[in-house]
């Protein structure tokens, strides 16, 4: 089983997590820029963070054979702090990087006017830089936040096939599906979505344009819930091909729209394993 986690905050995770993820079949991750537990107070704090998720984290991941890409944005919560806003002017530098495969996480937290403005400005940046967009839906007032996000996405003129709307659930999935965006689900230990609920959603809607992630971060979360979801799918009657589509080919397809997704290291390693004698003991 090969797993691509399209949304995970590795900067909050330990090397033990990388080890366990690699052993469980996680070969690729995307780390979206987001808020940390402690609010930031200046643009420099963001750029050091961006440097980390395009520099240090890919290096750390590579030591475990995991390919790491990032998405870059000013998150909706900190968009409300005028001290952080100037980071918007620095985003184009980061959106030009080879390892940046989308603008994100953008979207809403409390649906303020400042969030409206920053969300729209960053969808425009996605269009300028020919990048897909990863949109977070709010944890509070989620249903209205989802509808409002879909309106802003529509107004921006971005192709909905280049947008992933994330952290959806049974209540919000239908509207997102109809709007033509990719629908994302974050599998969490207690909140957001569970593996068994996810299997039910897949039964109803299929695997097309669906992304499943662990969204593991500094809160109570688990980087292996992608794997647990795959297991629940198999136990629930889905085939290995469905699992591979949902947890590998779908995220590859979504982020490959950036033209920058580079999985050559992993494909080489797999090709070596499958077709070369070295890893089979020279026979």
């Amino acid at each position, binding site marked *: 089983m090969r797993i691509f986690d399209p949304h995970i905050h590795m900067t909050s995770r330990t090397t033990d997590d990388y080890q366990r993820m690699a052993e469980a079949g996680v070969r690729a991750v995307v780390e979206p820029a987001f808020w940390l537990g402690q609010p930031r107070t200046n643009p420099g704090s963001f750029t050091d963070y961006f*440097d980390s998720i395009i*520099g*240090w984290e890919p*290096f750390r991941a590579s030591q475990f054979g995991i390919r790491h890409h990032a998405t870059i944005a000013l998150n909706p919560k900190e968009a409300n702090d005028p001290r952080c806003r100037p980071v918007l002017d620095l985003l184009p*530098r*980061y959106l*030009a990087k*080879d390892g940046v495969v989308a603008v994100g996480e953008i979207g809403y937290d409390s649906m303020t006017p400042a969030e409206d403005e920053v969300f729209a400005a960053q969808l425009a940046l996605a269009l300028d830089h020919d990048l897909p967009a990863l949109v977070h839906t709010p944890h509070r007032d989620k249903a209205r936040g989802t509808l409002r996000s879909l309106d802003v996405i529509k107004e921006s003129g971005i192709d909905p096939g280049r947008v992933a709307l994330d952290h959806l659930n049974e209540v919000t999935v239908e509207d997102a599906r109809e709007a033509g965006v990719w629908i994302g689900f974050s599998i969490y230990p207690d909140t957001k979505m569970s593996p068994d609920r996810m299997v039910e959603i897949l039964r109803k809607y299929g695997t097309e344009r669906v992304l499943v992630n662990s969204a593991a971060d500094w809160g109570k979360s688990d980087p292996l819930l992608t794997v647990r979801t795959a297991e629940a799918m198999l136990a629930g009657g889905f085939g290995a091909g469905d699992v591979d589509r949902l947890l590998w080919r779908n995220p590859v397809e979504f982020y490959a729209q950036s033209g920058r997704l580079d999985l050559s290291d992993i494909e080489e390693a797999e090709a070596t394993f499958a077709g070369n004698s070295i890893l089979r003991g020279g026979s």
Partner: protein
Amino acid sequence: MATLDVLKNDLSENTNLRDDLARVTKDPNAIAGLFPAARRRYGQEPLADGWTTDEAARALLLAAAPAEQIGEVYRYGDTAEKLAVLKALPLLPIGDAGVPLLEDALRTNDTRLVAAALGPYSDHLAQDTWRQAVLKCVFMGVPLKGVHRLAERADPELGAMLRAFALERHAAGRDMPPDAHALLDQLKEA
């Protein structure tokens, strides 16, 4: 050996680069968007002397911009960009103004950046900084064969540091890498 003229000649057919160099000459700030996109805009083919198209293009972009842009490009660079800046430093007419960038690279825990900081431009590093850098390579397992002028610059003080390190490793039941032992032997003979 690569020089800016050689690299320019190697890439003379690259029309994207020719246009972009003209842009940067006119508007130095354009380098902020072009430098990170080098692989996608100019390719990544191997050239002579261990260079690739994107690295050579990045060196030429830096040469086309005012010297004060070099620090900015490095500051906002991802790892491949930082490596390209470090590789370009000895070709640029900047004296020892690039030393802070080497010192920045040496503070990281990324073996590629630490190794790149010890290329030809490390001639500008003060001897005590250089010794610490070599010892850090040994500690991180970065091969010493890439350290510029290692045999010439290694001195008894570095020898003392390596011997102390070997003792600590020995106490922990571990060994020092063979290339560090070879360097110690060379220093003993001198």
